[in-house]
């Protein structure tokens, strides 16, 4: 059945979308610092996120040094260890992953991929970045505050988070942490409004929703989720700030501390857990959905093949987004909740595996008999699929209450979430940076350094996190500063811990190569040209590379979907989205 609706394309005039009024910068300051151009804001977001991410990387080194060689480094005492854990987790999840995917890639790619000149509210977009920077600075300030940063764990569970036994609990640490999160949420809301409204209203002529690249679908859905989920974090932070500063008892039960009855009483720590995970679980998918979208585009482009099951991919993104709001309590199986709730949440958790598995199958089927180019972005995309499947499968273990309860406090959980929401999205971020760096700077990243970076990172990450599954299964607890003498922990487990630590140091060092590559290639990289990957999406069709302020001379018109690769009969193996007509496509078969 051939049912291609051909159009001539000539009937469509180019200027049917109203041109937006662009903000025009007049000085160096407003052009590069207080810029309202989404591309500059994207680079600002990404640089800040990577910078604070490097801090979190060093913190993970310090943590691993203590776990691998307990007591060998005198300055890592128990208090510091908990501070390192907490800040590492919080920075990586919120200030690196969320900010980089939505603030970084969202800002850069949404306007360009949709054929818009900029975001719809450039001023709010700029404010969004500056509030994010302020949030990061407040967070960093807590390292220098009396008592140091909070050591409550990245989940900040009360009552321990605001008690004197926890580092930063009675000092500035927890106050600065909560303030920083509140600022982050306000800043994100400003950016998030932009991303959503730009997708709704800023698309160029012909760019229907079902022609959007999956990257935009992923970022769009994740933003909608974030706008609905972050208020829960906001509420939890405000309430805990009240408990800590004003002495209210939202979360604080009656407590005797150091033989002294505190003035709190009657509060519910479980209430905090509900609020936190109502945000916390969607957060996993706020990070994962943009990664899903980006990886789909990377695979399709570098396998020179259209994405398998585009519609299914879109539906899966939307369904995952909706489902992720009703699974939050699977993080609370050990909180003593009603077993029927546990049953309900285990069921929804396992259901979410269905659309996720569909996505994985579709990626693999896209690769099937594709013209696979093992470029750096492709290597990272392939590594992502493997890693995500790995982490996803252990997620099925932990989604079941009976399996989760004994494993909940062990290294197994650490291995699981690092695989699925640490390593996997980070691999996509790397792939995406190697993919879009030529558009941002006009030059390619160095290939040799990139290969070194990829192989050390990919193999190294497995050598770090795979053994942790075994450590978890023999019952090695997570969150412990040191194990001491425990009969169930064999000597080989300690050797394994040393090995993991050494690997962590090596993988961390490989990131320095990456950073060097990022800076070195700005000047010395190979000239990329406008479309080095021969990709179809609009961002590669800009008149200039890097795109200048306003992106386009004349707004592009979209005539096809984003995945016209290796179309039979076509002159080249890709047809850009803005190419009119259907020359040579008559032989294409309809599904």
């Amino acid at each position, binding site marked *: 059945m051939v049912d291609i609706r051909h159009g001539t394309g000539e009937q469509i005039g180019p200027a049917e979308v109203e041109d937006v009024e662009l903000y025009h910068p007049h000085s160096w300051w407003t052009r590069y610092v207080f810029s309202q151009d989404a591309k500059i804001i994207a680079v600002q977001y990404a640089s800040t996120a990577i910078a604070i991410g490097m801090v979190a990387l060093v913190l993970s080194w310090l943590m691993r040094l203590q776990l691998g060689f307990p007591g060998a480094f005198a300055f890592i005492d128990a208090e510091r260890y908990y501070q390192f854990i907490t800040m590492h987790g919080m920075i990586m999840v919120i200030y690196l992953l969320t900010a980089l995917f939505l603030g970084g890639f969202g800002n850069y790619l949404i306007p360009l991929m949709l054929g818009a000149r900029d975001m719809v509210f450039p001023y709010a977009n700029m404010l969004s970045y500056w509030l994010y920077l302020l949030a990061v600075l407040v967070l960093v300030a807590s390292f220098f505050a009396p008592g140091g940063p909070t050591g409550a764990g990245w989940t900040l569970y009360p009552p321990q988070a605001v008690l004197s036994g926890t580092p930063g609990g009675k000092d500035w640490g927890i106050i600065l942490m909560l303030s920083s999160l509140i600022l982050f949420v306000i800043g994100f809301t400003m950016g998030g409004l932009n991303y959503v409204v730009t997708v709704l209203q800023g698309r160029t002529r012909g760019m229907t929703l079902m022609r959007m690249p999956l990257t935009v679908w992923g970022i769009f859905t994740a933003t909608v989720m974030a706008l609905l989920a972050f208020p829960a974090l906001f509420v939890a932070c405000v309430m805990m700030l009240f408990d800590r500063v004003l002495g209210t008892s939202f979360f604080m039960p009656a407590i005797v501390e150091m033989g002294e009855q505190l003035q709190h009483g009657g509060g519910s720590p479980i209430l905090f857990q509900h609020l936190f995970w109502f945000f916390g679980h969607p957060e996993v998918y706020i990070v994962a959905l943009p990664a899903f979208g980006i990886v789909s585009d990377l695979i399709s482009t570098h396998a020179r093949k259209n994405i398998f099951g585009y519609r299914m991919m879109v539906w899966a993104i939307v369904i995952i987004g909706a489902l992720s709001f009703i699974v939050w309590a699977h993080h609370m199986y050990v909180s003593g909740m009603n077993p029927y709730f546990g049953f309900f949440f285990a069921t929804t958790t396992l259901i979410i595996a269905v659309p996720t598995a569909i996505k994985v199958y579709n990626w693999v089927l896209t690769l099937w008999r594709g013209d696979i180019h093992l470029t750096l972005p492709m290597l990272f995309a392939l590594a992502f699929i493997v890693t995500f499947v790995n982490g996803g499968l252990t997620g099925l273990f932990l989604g079941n209450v009976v399996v989760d309860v004994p494993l909940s406090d062990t290294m197994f959980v650490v291995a699981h979430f690092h695989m699925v929401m640490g390593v996997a999205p980070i691999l996509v971020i790397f792939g995406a940076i190697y993919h879009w760096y030529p558009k941002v700077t006009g030059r390619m990243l160095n290939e040799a350094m990139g290969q070194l970076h990829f192989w050390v990172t990919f193999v190294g990450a497995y050598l770090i996190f795979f053994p942790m599954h075994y450590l978890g299964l023999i019952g090695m607890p997570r969150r412990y500063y040191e194990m001491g003498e425990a009969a169930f922990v064999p000597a080989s487990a300690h050797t394994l811990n040393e090995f993991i630590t050494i690997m962590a140091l090596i993988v961390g060092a490989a990131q320095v190569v990456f950073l060097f590559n990022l800076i070195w290639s700005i000047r010395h990289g190979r000239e990329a040209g406008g479309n080095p990957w021969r990709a179809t999406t609009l961002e590669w069709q800009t008149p200039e590379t890097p795109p200048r302020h306003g992106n386009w001379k004349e707004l592009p018109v979209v005539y096809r979907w984003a995945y016209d690769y290796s179309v039979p009969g076509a002159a080249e193996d890709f047809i850009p989205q803005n190419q009119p007509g*259907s020359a040579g496509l008559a032989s294409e078969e309809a599904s």
Partner: protein
Amino acid sequence: MSVSLVFLAVILLIAGWWLAHQRLFSKPWLEVGHTHDPRPHGPPVIAPAQIGLGVFLVVVGALFTLFISAYFMRMASTDWWSTPMPRILWLNTAILGLGSLLLHAARVTAEQHREETSRTALIAALASGLAFLAGQVFAWSELTDAGFLIADNPANSFFYMITGMHGLHILGGLFALTRVILKTRAGPIGEKGVLSITLCATYWHFMLAVWLVLFALFSGWANDFVELCRQLLT
């Protein structure tokens, strides 16, 4: 969390309804060469700013819904006794409603090009907003004078926290309103001015609705309603 889930379900229904009109079942790989754009030509029917405000109000709605969820969950514990409502809150409610009416009037008169009336209404709305905030602060001081301090009881804590959060949102609205007043202070109010006034009015109506829900919540009527719903469900 059931209140939040109901709110979320409503939002998801609206989003689903919108998505259902986006040709999700089309086969984009077959539609080559066309623009196939269902959107009407020319400038968008609804201004981006209006959609932006709509999305923002959803976020604000989610925020207050979560506060209310927390309120109900915390209420279940035994150390809860309700805070008495100062009488002035009735006056404040009336003032906030008056502000809503004034902004509505400002929008209508601006559309009819009766600039002077519209400007007067805007300034009166600003005054009523300030009066509302002053009234809220007065209500707080009345409560503290009567010995209902913030940390004494969770009901008090929630009252101060949520009214404070609502007040902050009103304050933000007043900033926006002041900007609109300054922008439209001279000459004819153009299309952009009317849009700005409309946005202010929408925001005000929404914050009035939020306040009415909160007032009902603190006065205890919402509890009866929730109890009724619970009995209907079980």
